């Protein structure tokens, strides 16, 4: 009767994911997450708004791009403005006025990236604040406390976060770990791959069976003047764009591409104000969201493998010129390129 007992414990967790379509070749899936602040279509890319804001853009702009879930950071918010204040502001949703879903991470990444400021003890991880030098003990209890005050949805969501894989391991190891993880996880629960990322990685990891992604890359690269496009990226500071009066991407529907030219953005990047960064942040988020939307549609319309081939063709000039690790990863789930 051990089998029956196991079945019962699996059924007790609330179902928040509904699968809408599955790729017949790879492990790609299209689905829906039913979260407290609305439904979210998967696969989904979640922009990162570390300190209760998406850097430089308003929640209205983010909503207009179709974003329905984004990330907040437990460690940073726990320090500034702190859980007590956020509680008084009716939670993180109220504080930043975001009507859709929020995911807050556990602060674990900060454990790795700020390791020189930390000391692991039996009680937890003791941090020295980079802002004022004060010490904080991030114990399991405190982490949970902060997360509860921030109304984090993750704790209530029975899904799986695949973490610890965006820190610099080789791509070859990376895809194998992802594939291994998804092969072991139940189909009907969301798989959240933390810290991923680049367009190619997103497409490959969808093929490997992941549903949710977050990464600072698109918003960070925007602030360095880089615009994401199907062929890679455009370094708009470069002189070659000085008199290029086309939009970043003629196929893109974001406000930046509707209203502004590469030449204008180039000029802004060489001026003394931050306007370009806002426009590029809007575009790069739009790019990621539109990419995920296109991926999802291709899965629903049962042509995901063709989509992958077209995507790699655009990105690398020819599907066969795709990086080896990606070719291997896709092959492992039945998708061949060229």
């Amino acid at each position, binding site marked *: 009767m051990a089998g029956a007992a196991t079945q019962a414990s699996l059924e007790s967790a609330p179902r928040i994911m509904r699968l809408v379509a599955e790729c017949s070749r790879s492990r790609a899936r299209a689905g829906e997450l039913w979260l407290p602040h609305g439904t979210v279509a998967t696969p989904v890319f979640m922009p990162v708004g570390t300190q209760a804001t998406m850097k430089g853009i*308003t929640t209205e702009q983010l909503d207009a791009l179709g974003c329905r879930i984004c990330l907040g950071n437990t460690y940073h918010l726990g320090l500034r*403005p702190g859980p007590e204040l956020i509680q008084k502001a009716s939670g993180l949703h109220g504080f930043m006025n975001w009507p859709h879903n929020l995911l807050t991470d556990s602060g674990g990444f900060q454990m790795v990236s700020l390791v020189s400021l930390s000391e692991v003890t039996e009680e937890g991880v003791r941090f020295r604040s980079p802002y004022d030098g004060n010490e904080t003990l991030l114990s399991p209890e405190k982490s949970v406390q902060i997360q509860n005050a921030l109304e984090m949805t993750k704790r209530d969501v029975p899904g799986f976060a695949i973490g610890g894989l965006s820190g610099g391991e080789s791509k070859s190891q990376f895809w194998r770990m992802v594939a291994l993880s998804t092969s072991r996880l139940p189909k009907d629960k969301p798989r959240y791959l933390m810290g991923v990322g680049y367009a190619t990685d997103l497409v490959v990891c969808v093929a490997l069976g992941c549903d949710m992604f977050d990464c600072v890359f698109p918003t960070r690269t925007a602030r360095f003047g880089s615009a994401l496009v199907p062929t890679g990226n455009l370094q708009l500071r470069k002189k070659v764009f000085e008199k290029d009066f086309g939009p970043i991407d003629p196929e893109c529907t974001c406000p930046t591409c509707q209203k502004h030219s590469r030449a204008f953005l180039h000029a802004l990047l060489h001026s003394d104000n931050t306007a370009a960064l806002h426009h590029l942040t809007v575009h790069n988020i739009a790019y990621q969201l539109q990419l995920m939307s296109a991926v999802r549609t291709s899965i629903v319309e049962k042509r995901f493998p063709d989509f992958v081939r077209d995507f790699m063709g655009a990105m690398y000039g020819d599907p066969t010129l795709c990086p080896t690790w990606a070719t291997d990863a896709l092959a492992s789930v039945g998708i061949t390129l060229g």
Partner: protein
Amino acid sequence: MVCWQSVSVWSVAGRVEMTVSKFMAIQKALQPDWFQCLSDGEVSCKEATSIKRVRKSVDRSLLFLDNCLRLQEESEVLQKSVIIGVIEGGDVMEERLRSARETAKRPVGGFLLDGFQGNPTTLETRLRLLSSVTAELPEDKPRLISGVSRPDEVLECIERGVDLFESFFPYQVTERGCALTFSFDYQPNPEETLLQQNGTQEEIKCVDQIKKIETTGCNQEITSFEINLKEKKYQEDFNPLVRGCSCYCCKNHTRAYIHHLLVTNELLAGVLLMMHNFEHYFGFFHYIREALKSDKLAQLKELIHRQAS
């Protein structure tokens, strides 16, 4: 640096000698609706200028104007733009009057009163000059002034015949992390007045709140027309910047949130503050127009003066 042929400006690309032809070539490319003519405004950048130098600035500016008008006559494209004549003359009454009279003789679309910028005390003395200058100008052409943007100074200039102002004041306020909160509704309903008074007692009390702060590119003092959102007292203030304001920031966010964004150096702080500060400032100008129409400028002036320190 100015000479009879050109005005030199320094940019990231080094020194640019702006001759009349170069200047007009740029205007031809830009195709603005109207543009301020090339002029010699160097006297306002220097202290204690000789009358000889002031005289030169008026003569040169008139020469530039005549040359620009001539080039405009020769170009169909340039004729679509309106030229604004610039009135110079430093602090010398005789030269100011000469500049005004001579410029008014030319077919310009309006007048820009240059050289009136400076700190509040210098404006005091210059306001007398201003009245005399505008008296020489035709009633039916707009008068612009550069370098004046503070609410109290704006009203003083309006009383002396000025029509258009630059809006760098709300921008400076934003750059120092502040929000405009001054009242300009000279005919509020009594209930609202009571509510405002109760809510903003602290702001009105702090007449001594002038502090010198250093922010990037902005060494201006905080005025009594604004609140400094970086102050700790706003950390838990869940009110909008200004109650009743219909800007995006006030409709969607709180003082506490703006405080958080400023403390964490987030880009969004400036975005939200700029939206509010522009809306507030333009709202002020709307009330100025209403006051002028209903002959209530004195009430508005009194209200603004009560809030200036």
